[in-house]
């Protein structure tokens, strides 16, 4: 921060440059009624809804989220945030109305997620977004993505963005799941050279790695493969509070500066 009136003050610490990006339509993002055009089960507890946004709607940056709201019978609304899982559409799709996919993990005693698991093609939802200017990857810096369970969702948008455009920026996704049946996007991640799946409770048959929590030994070779330790790689950590704390500390212990680790903590919703 610079302040000409206070030239003698020491600079405050900072977490990196911020670009204040006001969308062309104005600062406020309004609610849109959008159509559900596809639904897909990812696991027994997670479902992806594909939404068709209005023509010209702003396209998300990988890592950003949308807010979904559903009315209650008493006239109030329940709203929660869900990360975009899909790669952002390009200008042509945007003109015709871009699509975005949100993956929703079902929380049995939650309010919104069970209702979102009940939507079908043709239903309409009220959404607002995209939001978030920190946990985003524009494809410009080498990235180590570390996700726990449903925390893989915004990271998948980053991986898909890289694939869709054939980007050569180094990127690797490490996703930690209890067992094989808990892995979202399993078809896309199977055998992917830029993805590593770590199992904490149940390993698939023939796995060389016994089930165990994510450790430095899992991340160190990936960091080395990205061409750098101790700088040059931005870490993106997403998952539950416990997972995010654990994985974030692992990256710092492996030499990634804490200022280069971006964290998104998912709560139940």
């Amino acid at each position: 921060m610079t302040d000409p009136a206070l030239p003698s003050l020491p600079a405050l610490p900072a977490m990196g440059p911020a670009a204040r990006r006001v969308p062309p339509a104005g600062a406020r993002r309004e609610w849109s009624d959008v159509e559900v055009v596809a639904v897909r089960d990812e696991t027994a507890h997670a479902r992806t809804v594909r939404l068709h946004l209005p023509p010209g709607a702003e396209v998300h940056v990988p890592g950003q989220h949308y807010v979904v709201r559903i009315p209650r019978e008493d006239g109030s609304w329940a709203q929660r945030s869900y990360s975009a899982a899909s790669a952002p559409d390009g200008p042509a799709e945007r003109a015709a109305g871009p699509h975005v996919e949100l993956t929703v993990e079902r929380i049995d005693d939650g309010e919104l997620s069970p209702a979102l698991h009940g939507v079908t093609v043709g239903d309409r939802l009220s959404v607002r977004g995209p939001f978030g200017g920190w946990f985003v990857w524009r494809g410009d810096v080498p990235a180590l993505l570390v996700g726990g369970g449903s925390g893989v969702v915004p990271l998948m948008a980053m991986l898909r963005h890289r694939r869709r455009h054939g980007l050569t920026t180094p990127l690797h996704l490490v996703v930690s799941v209890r067992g094989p049946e808990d892995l979202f996007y399993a078809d896309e991640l199977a055998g992917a050279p830029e993805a590593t799946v770590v199992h904490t409770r149940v390993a698939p048959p023939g796995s060389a790695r016994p089930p165990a929590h994510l450790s430095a030994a899992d991340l160190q070779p990936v960091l080395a493969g990205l061409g750098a330790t101790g700088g040059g790689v931005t870490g993106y950590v997403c998952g539950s509070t416990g997972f995010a704390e654990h994985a974030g500390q692992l990256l710092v212990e492996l030499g990634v500066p804490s200022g280069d680790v971006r964290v998104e903590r998912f709560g139940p919703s």
Partner: protein
Amino acid sequence: MPILPGRRRPRDPRLPPGQYDAGDGFPVLSAEVTPRIDLDTWSFRIDGLVDTPVTWTWPQLRALPPATYEGDIHCVTTWSKLGTSFTGVSVDTLLAQAGVQGRATHVVAWSVTGYTTNLPLEHVTDGLAWVVWEHEGRPLPPEHGGPVRMLVPHLYFWKSAKWIGGLRLLDHDEPGFWETRGYHALGDPWSEQRYDGD
């Protein structure tokens, strides 16, 4: 469009619009790795448009008259925690020692991690803000901003900077970390000032 059942119980009047009661939960939301802070070397500083910049060490801060907030907190991600408590020292006590200059209008609260958030001066004075180190009688855990964080409970909780390092008084508004990334400049939960332009 799907529709949800009406709420079974009458809505708690302490809940601002769009918020739900997190009950005994205390969700953690922060954008960075939780720092490990050593209270032997940590200090809290007030500078900028003050008569005397002041730095307090941990023992010096603890020697000030304590103050406790009992009430509610509201996170922009839609959870609220009702009837909770934090103990520390009132920002009024700290500002009185530094002496606020007349042209100061805003503060930037900054964290040791580099996190910043902006607040109009009148939103941190007259009993509206604290620097706290206890939650419900126990030391504030690191993931909740411990050992010491800001508490500005009448605004969304991203204004209550974790791992606080100090306050800087300015004669203008200087948007902070989230405020330059799409979130509202003030963040009044009763007006649902969640995002830029709300």
